[in-house]
């Protein structure tokens, strides 16, 4: 396979965009990525778009951007949709099919229910689903529920406290207060997080990522072209995915379905998790406060049960040994399902390049050699995990 680099990225601010069409938030992100890459748009040979709800939206974006004729492929894989679009663009170039490929992530969620978001399947199958006992039982759980179950077991087994969980949101908001494209930029205290509206104990509202509108785009290139267009390519060292099923996942409630995928990704990049300390940073899927703590443990960055200690020791802070979610993550940026995976890639690229976009939240130079971007999702009753590892040097 050929080496592949990310050369250009763009992000449309995450938040509420009720009066804008999908293409009106997608086009600026794509145009920013093209300008950032310094290419002529007619050089783009393929487009992969990650979106759960945006049927046909990539065609509208490509048409508005004057690139009609190239293959456009929509990718849906719940919260991993953007990561998957990025992976497909990587494969397209690694395989030699394209030399330059565009990955788009886009979602509008503010004005729809989660059921409508699911591309229609939930509504189409509602009657049949509710007659199937195992599905109707899972349906009582809801999205925060699964993570709340994990949080309670973690608290029971490791004396993790409500304050430990709230601290994840406190760090998230602190970082997002330096990110003008995040949905929530207001700092919060532990007390404010704990006194917020209860959703699923122990998770209060600000420990749950919001439904958000947003878009992001990335331009990927072959090694030969990347070296021609930029002095600061960001190399893709690993692209890894796994799947699992909710009934299997209940067997290990103090972990999330990413352990095998993390092992695969580190192995593909020929790295050990410990190689990231004082050398790298990460954008991980903090869909809920507990998720981020479990990722520290499941990715091998600390022992099982010591996620809260790692956070309380300051290791994942922007100036810590292993900065995690410098953007503010999903908890504060918001989580437009298809857009998140590509927004993370943009954060990785901006940080590694020391771009003015991240001037207020710049990670120190010693930690810019490696980066990891991760999303996980639950397409109805399955689970999927997507990880990419990046490096500054090939």
């Amino acid at each position: 396979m050929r080496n592949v680099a990310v050369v250009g990225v763009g992000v449309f601010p995450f938040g509420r965009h009720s009066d804008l069409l999908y293409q009106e938030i997608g086009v600026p992100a794509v145009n920013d990525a093209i300008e950032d890459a310094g290419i002529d748009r007619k050089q783009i040979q393929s487009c992969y778009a990650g979106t759960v709800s945006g049927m046909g939206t990539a065609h509208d974006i490509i048409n508005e951007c004057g690139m009609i004729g190239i293959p456009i492929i929509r990718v849906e894989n719940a919260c991993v949709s953007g990561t998957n679009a990025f992976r497909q663009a990587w494969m397209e170039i690694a395989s030699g099919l394209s030399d330059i490929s565009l990955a788009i992530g886009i979602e509008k969620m503010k004005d729809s229910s989660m059921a409508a978001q699911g591309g229609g399947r939930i509504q189409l199958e509602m009657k049949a689903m509710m007659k199937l006992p195992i599905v109707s039982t899972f349906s009582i759980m809801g999205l925060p529920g699964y993570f709340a179950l994990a949080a309670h077991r973690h608290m029971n087994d490791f004396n993790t406290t409500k304050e430990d969980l709230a601290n994840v949101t406190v760090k998230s908001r602190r970082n997002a207060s330096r990110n003008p494209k995040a949905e929530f930029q207001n700092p919060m205290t532990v007390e404010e997080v704990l006194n917020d509206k209860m959703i699923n104990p122990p998770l209060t509202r600000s420990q749950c990522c919001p439904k958000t509108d947003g878009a992001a785009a990335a331009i990927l290139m072959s090694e030969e072209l990347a070296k021609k267009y930029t002095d600061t390519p960001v190399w893709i060292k690993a692209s890894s995915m796994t799947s699992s099923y909710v009934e299997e996942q209940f067997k290990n409630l103090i972990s999330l379905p990413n352990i095998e995928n993390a092992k695969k990704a580190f192995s593909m990049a020929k790295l050990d998790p410990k190689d990231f300390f004082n050398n790298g940073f990460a954008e991980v899927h903090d869909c809920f406060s507990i998720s981020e703590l479990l990722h520290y443990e499941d990715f091998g960055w600390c022992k099982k049960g010591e996620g809260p200690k790692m956070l309380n020791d300051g290791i994942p802070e922007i100036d810590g040994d292993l900065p995690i979610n410098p953007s503010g993550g999903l908890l504060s940026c918001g989580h437009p399902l298809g857009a998140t995976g590509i927004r993370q890639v943009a954060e990785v690229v901006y940080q590694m390049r020391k771009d003015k976009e991240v001037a207020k939240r710049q990670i120190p130079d010693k930690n810019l050699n490696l980066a990891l971007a991760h999303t996980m999702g639950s397409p109805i009753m399955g689970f999927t995990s997507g990880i990419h590892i990046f490096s500054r040097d090939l």
Partner: protein
Amino acid sequence: MKREPLFIDGKLNAGKCNDCGVVRFPRRDYCNYCQSTNISEYLLGPQGKLETFTISYMKPMIGRMKPPYPYGVAIFLTDDGQKIHVIGLIDSQEPFEDVKIDKGLILIEDKLLIKFKMEAD
């Protein structure tokens, strides 16, 4: 792929792989571990233990449950010591003080939902 009943004789209708011995609930045509189709009926419960729980203060994405309602994951043991994890609604009244991690519970037979009742302290 056929629809199996949820309960048989007040117990959960699970499947045991005759080739590798793994028990799965719900029962399915293929074993996920050895891909065998040689699966026999294996009944779980009615006594189990609460592994973890939460309370929903939000309406569910689908269905008609009225919040707040507690639910959790229970462990049912097989004869050979396999732990089978099953999610279910917990039959309890606010403020749900009887719902505690690692406490015993019993299945309540129902046509449409898996339900548990906590055992007395």
